[in-house]
């Protein structure tokens, strides 16, 4: 088990945005969390990436209780690819290699290999901010994967991207999960993407985890009527 969380609650200015009784994440699985905007999906990822401390409740990471200050060696096992890729004012290669530089790991052929896998080699020396949205997101994915995280958190990584970029990003995530056993937690509006990638899928509504099941059950025979409605594409709040 990578994460075990209990009575996890998070509030901003007194308003509760996340309130999950229990969430366990298995090592090496791809877990998708779907739900409408404002459901608390991104907040949950920030807590799991130790970017924020929950208002109350507990998070165990690999059996270790996470409180206040999180040791660097644990923080460096988890990384997030956000919906909007935040790139540095530098070349594509420098951006992709940035996580390794932070860790003081010497750059070797791995950078070029990763650039090649995501079709970025032709742009390697180009300033990152001159790329298209899809290319920028591929840079962000390459940068995250190059640090070989144990847990990869994906916050709407392919929202607003064209099918070519979506396919390329999904393929490398699938491959990394299969080859290295990376645990992936994917937050998405796109139920089709959840179905394509995840072994388990959960529905978050108004900060609460309505249902979490293996992906086939979630989509084919959901237990909760709200899940059934969401899967059918109906408006659910």
């Amino acid at each position, binding site marked *: 088990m990578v994460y075990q969380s209990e009575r996890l609650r998070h509030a901003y200015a007194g308003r509760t945005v996340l309130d999950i009784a229990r969430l366990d994440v298995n090592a090496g699985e791809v877990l998708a969390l779907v739900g409408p905007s404002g459901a608390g999906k991104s907040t949950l990822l920030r807590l799991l*990436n130790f*970017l924020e401390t929950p208002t109350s409740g507990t998070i165990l990471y690999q059996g270790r209780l996470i409180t206040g200050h999180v040791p660097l060696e644990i923080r460096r096992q*988890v990384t997030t690819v*956000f919906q909007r890729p*935040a790139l*540095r004012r530098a070349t594509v290669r420098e951006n992709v290699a*940035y*996580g390794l530089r932070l860790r003081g790991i010497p750059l070797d052929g791995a950078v070029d290999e990763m650039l090649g896998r995501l079709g970025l080699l032709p742009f390697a020396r180009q300033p990152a901010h001159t790329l298209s949205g899809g290319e920028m997101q591929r840079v962000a994915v390459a*940068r995250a994967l190059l*640090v070989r995280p144990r847990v990869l958190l994906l916050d709407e990584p392919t929202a607003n991207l064209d099918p070519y970029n979506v396919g390329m990003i999904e393929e490398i995530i699938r491959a990394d999960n299969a080859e290295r056993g990376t645990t992936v937690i994917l937050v998405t509006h796109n139920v089709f993407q959840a179905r394509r990638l995840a072994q388990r899928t959960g529905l978050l509504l108004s900060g609460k985890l309505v249902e979490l099941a293996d992906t086939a059950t979630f989509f084919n025979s959901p237990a909760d009527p709200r899940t059934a409605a969401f899967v059918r594409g109906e408006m659910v709040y």
Partner: protein
Amino acid sequence: MERGCARDIQLNDIARGLEQAIRLILAADPELLGIIFLSLRVTGLALLISTLAGVPIGAGLGLARLRGHGLITAILYTGMGLPPVVVGLFVYLMLSRSGPLGVLGWLFTPSAMVAAQTIISFPLVTGLTMTAVRSVDPALRVQVRSLGATRVQEAWAVLAEARIGVVAAIVAAFGGIISEVGAVMLVGGNIAGRTRVLTTAIVLETRQGEFAFAIALGVILLALAFTANLALLRLQGKL
């Protein structure tokens, strides 16, 4: 007719001034070189002190979310608009024989000029650095942390993103103090060979009707400011 004559004379002076400027520069006139050297020394030293103190403080203010940062910002922005002559008066009173710092014996020395120019440039460097750091995309900071940066690495990454703004802050401060006259005139006294800099020399030469020499000095002052801006554009990759 008379008016036209006066204009001819002025245009003549400008032409002669430019010609003399080139001649003085090419001849490496010792008096001129002394004035240029002192200007650069005073301004350079004031800028160095302001940069060494102002960049870290500005970066810290930009990165931290201090209680009352609005008040700090207001104070800094007010400091950025300090009238040099008021700063000169303040430094003069501090350093005059009966002032609290009179024992230093700095009045009418380059040290007093450096002190005055430091007071003028420090808020500029600090305030503009703070603004540059605050304007860095907050998402980048979160992303850098998510990639496993330490606090120092995170601060460094933000500062690196703000580097063009920080350089602009330093160049703006340079432009502000190399061209100011009120403060250095008051605390330096414009003493030939000791505290005469480009701006105070221009005032003196103009008052004495030595327009050509004044114009020569003006051209050099402009050339220095132009060079500083060229360096900025180069750093921004726009040249």
